[in-house]
């Protein structure tokens, strides 16, 4: 009996444990299934609503099915613009000729440039300077841009390959790479570069705009900006902003490979080498071996007089021994 009783006891314990096991596993499985179901439902409703930022800077939640994907054109694609900007225009070698005898300080070039590149009034890609070499020589106006050197010292010192020389001669700056070290400012003998110390002029308006390396817009605080020979204009067959804005026929622009330059004001096209030869063309600081792509024609037979109000500024260039 006692054996049998013991057997029964054992049986009932085993049975109890068995039942407990089944109920336990069952409830865990059932519970997790219900939980998973709830979770799935939650996920489903949430994933169909997405958050979007409107043009008025308002954060809204809308049904995902109501949205359509905005397809970016290649001109809104930063990588495309950067690649295109690095390559340049094949087969060209841009040159600029500045005829100093025609400049009368109208400063239209500066205005057009600052407007195009969203620059502050004190930032100059191009600047019309008042020059005088010695006490006895005549003062004159001199428009000065980046010289787009074939041997650019600024590019040599850039530690991050942000400023670069292109195959068509233009020296550009990629402000997506620029770290703001300003080595290039120190290296440039022509003082052609400006730094965005403050927030750029159109910082708010330009927000969200894809950065175009050929226009350097939007400008960015803490990076370099410089003359770009209006690379974006050249691509579409137009002359640089400054060149076409000049009312006095100061600038010629063209392709050295074609041996032709076109005047921005009169639109007259002439032979490049002949223009330099006939008018004793020269470059700035040739002794530095920078090989500039901007050529100057001397201020001979000036068509406009130097204004008296600009004399003091021109005389600042005279050393004390001369003055």
């Amino acid at each position, binding site marked *: 009996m006692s054996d049998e009783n013991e057997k029964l006891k054992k049986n009932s314990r085993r049975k109890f444990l068995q039942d407990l096991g089944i109920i336990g596993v069952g409830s865990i499985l059932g519970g997790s299934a219900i939980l998973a179901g709830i979770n799935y439902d939650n996920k489903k409703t949430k994933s169909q609503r997405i958050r979007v930022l409107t043009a008025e800077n308002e954060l809204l939640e809308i049904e995902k099915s109501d949205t359509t994907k905005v397809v970016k054109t290649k001109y809104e694609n930063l990588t495309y613009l950067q690649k295109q900007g690095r390559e*340049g225009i*094949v*087969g*060209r*070698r841009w040159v600029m000729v500045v005829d100093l005898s025609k400049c*009368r300080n*109208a400063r*239209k070039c500066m205005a057009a440039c600052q407007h195009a590149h969203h620059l502050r009034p004190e930032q100059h890609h191009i600047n019309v300077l008042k020059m005088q070499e010695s006490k006895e020589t005549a003062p004159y106006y001199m428009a000065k841009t980046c010289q787009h050197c*074939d*041997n*650019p010292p600024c*590019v*040599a010192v*850039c530690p991050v*390959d942000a400023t*670069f*020389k*292109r*195959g*068509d*001669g233009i020296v550009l700056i990629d402000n997506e790479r620029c770290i703001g070290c300003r080595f290039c400012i120190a290296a440039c003998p022509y003082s052609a570069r400006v730094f965005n110390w403050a927030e750029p002029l159109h910082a708010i308006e330009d927000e969200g705009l894809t950065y175009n390396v050929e226009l350097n817009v939007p400008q960015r605080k803490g990076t370099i900006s410089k003359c770009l020979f209006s690379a974006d204009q050249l691509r579409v*067959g137009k*002359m640089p902003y400054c060149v*076409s*804005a*000049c*009312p*006095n*026929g100061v600038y010629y*622009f*063209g*392709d050295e*490979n*074609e*041996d*032709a*330059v*076109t005047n921005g*004001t*009169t*639109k*007259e*096209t*002439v*032979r490049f080498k002949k223009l330099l030869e006939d008018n004793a063309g020269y470059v700035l600081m040739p002794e530095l071996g920078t090989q500039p792509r901007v050529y100057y024609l001397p201020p001979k037979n000036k068509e406009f007089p130097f204004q008296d109000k600009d004399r003091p500024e021109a005389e600042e260039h005279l050393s004390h021994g001369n003055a």
Partner: protein
Amino acid sequence: MLRKNIPYRFVLTVILVASFYLQPFAQGWDVPADKKAKNSYIKFDKATAKEGETVYTKNCQSCHGDIGKNNSLKSLKPIPPDLSSTKSQQLTDGELFYILNTGRMIMPSFNNVLSETDRWKVISYIRSFNNSYIQVLSKTDPTKSNLVKINLSYDSINSIVRVQVTASEKAGVVALKNSEIILFANRYFGKLQIDKTLRTDNDGIALFRFTKNLPGDKSGNVELIVKVNDDKYGEILSQSKLKIGVPTDKPSLTEKRAIWNVLLKAPIWLIITYTSGVLIFGVFLLFLLYGLFRIKKSGNN
């Protein structure tokens, strides 16, 4: 309706009388009588004025300012007039056209820059600021220029470009005699004139001297543009490619190695020497460390 009823002669008389009174203004320009009476063959309406505005903004605005706003560039001498002014509006279409063509002092000539149609369109835009203006259309038929054929050939021995201009009329092929003819080479930003402006002879032929040193494309092709101005046929433009230039295929300016070159353009020998140098140094360091390790181990023993 009223406008149509005004007799043609009356309009002409008004213009002649007006031009007589306005002679002092036009005096500086010295417009010949036949040019003064020239009229446009395109109608001055809203569409042409709109197209003219585009041309104006690109070529004229920097000096003459926005028409009607009197914001022309005052620092120039003489001051470019605002073209909506009575003075400017009283000039005949022919006078405006002549001024645009020839230019004077600081005003550049647009003869070779803008096509005849574009020049008339600018005048159409200028006239759109004058409500009392009534246009007299020219009787020349602009479609007549389609009959003209221009033939180019190159004499390489004498380096002369020979251009023959003929028109295929119903009666047969006729040569365009004594018409103004200009030869250009097409460049990136504009047209480069070759030799001088000539006039065709009795056979409709003009010979241009060509300087052999003009750069062409890779195979020496130069795109030539011939512009003919004929009283009867109007302005004709024709483009053709001739293999007369110097073949030009200059390498890209980044091709040559310089100190500012990036890794992509470094020569292979430099990359190999540099990398193997770094590797050898690394291996040597490891060897030293191994030696130290062996000394320590033998010391322990």
